[in-house]
């Protein structure tokens, strides 16, 4: 089977080009296998359908709706994002990757790939969530800001956890165990911030929550860049 070849970026030893090479490779593999995309859409759409049928026309508070929204996003994303390193280990390509490039290029390439998956997921799930539930569309700009920060937070946290569990024998259980304490604070804040913006709060009123979400992503990415070398090479 012949596939059209897309030129990889020319590189001159820069980290950016190495990151881009890892990202383009993962994107290309995903577009050919659609493993991650199929998993997130199947999970996302089926959970939305279940919510829609079980709730019917019931009016729910914004607190319940925001919790449901982030549960759907989280569990849909988990099904694919954990696989980003597992696939490398299971297919035996991780060894070649370890031998050829620096750990940070691998981490950042995978982080951007996971980010792309999550952006695609929320781009599809969010409009459907508004259609299937009576989530308020007022304050949509504020909600988009919370959503963008939430996507960055989930992505930063799960990429490192995915690297940690990739070589374990009980990946699924370990992923859940490690994710729980790391994701719990950010999920609580995401649900609270979404509840507030859907209830009509202004940006100023949720600014503390947004600052927490922003700080979380900065801390997670910085910590991951410092720790990933040890996770990847040992």
């Amino acid at each position, binding site marked *: 089977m012949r596939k059209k*070849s897309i030129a990889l970026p*020319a590189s*001159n030893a820069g980290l950016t080009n*190495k990151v881009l090479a890892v990202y383009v490779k993962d994107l290309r593999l995903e577009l050919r296998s659609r493993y991650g995309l199929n998993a997130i859409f199947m999970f996302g759409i089926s959970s939305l359908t279940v919510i829609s049928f079980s709730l019917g026309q019931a009016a729910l508070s914004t607190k319940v709706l925001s919790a449901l929204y982030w549960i759907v996003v989280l569990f849909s994303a988990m099904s694919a994002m954990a696989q980003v390193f597992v696939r490398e280990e299971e297919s035996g390509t991780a060894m*070649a990757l370890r031998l050829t*490039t620096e750990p940070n290029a691998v981490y950042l390439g995978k982080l951007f790939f996971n980010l792309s998956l999550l952006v695609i997921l929320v781009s599809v799930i969010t409009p459907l969530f508004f259609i299937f539930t009576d989530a308020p569309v007022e304050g949509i700009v504020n909600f988009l800001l919370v959503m963008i920060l939430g996507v960055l937070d989930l992505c930063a946290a799960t990429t490192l956890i995915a690297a940690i569990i990739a070589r374990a024998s009980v990946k699924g259980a370990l992923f859940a165990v490690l994710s729980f304490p790391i994701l719990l604070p950010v999920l609580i804040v995401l649900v609270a911030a979404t509840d507030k913006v859907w209830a009509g709060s202004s940006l100023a009123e949720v600014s503390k929550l947004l600052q927490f979400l922003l700080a979380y992503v900065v801390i997670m990415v910085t910590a991951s860049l410092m720790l990933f070398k040890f996770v990847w090479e040992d």
Partner: protein
Amino acid sequence: MLAIKVESLKKNFGERKVISSLNLEIRQGESVAITGPNGSGKTTLLKLLLALLRPSSGKVTYFDNDRVLSREELRHRISFVAPYLSLYDQLSAEENLQFFTAVRGRNITGKEIDSLLLRVGLEGRGMDLVSDYSTGMKQRLKYAVALSNKPDFLLIDEPSSGLDDSGKAMMTALIEEQRSGSIIIIATNEKEEYSLASQQCRLDQ
């Protein structure tokens, strides 16, 4: 001039001692065949040399004109071929070559790709997905990927694994060609491959 120094290298897996206090010096222009029966630690030694495994004690140092090479520098100068080293099945041979040179911070031209594929006998098959390749073709492609790095150190585990007669001839010619510019370390059980190296390092169980 010293190129690789292995000092008091030990590797244990639990209670089992696989490598016991190995000392080895390899100089520029030399090549080494690591030999020994199954389970004697040939592959473990290669993985220790590649820093894919952490030694229980001892160390491996690579030099360039008496200067110690860092791990990052080494990544750009070392290549590895082994039956258990996998390439990306869902990428074509060309895409694999482009990827593995790009992540090393290098650029590869279409002409270089054609020349590498011709060198390993895969001309005309560069656009095929690796999943469509036979085991022997995959092994040939691993040699192409290894050569694309223009390595100073070339490590090969079971050089002829999966190769047919023409593949073995290609591999022999390629190693002999590389010996002039690279330090070659091969791990093998095949007696006819011992002659590919200038020295032998025999591991016993």
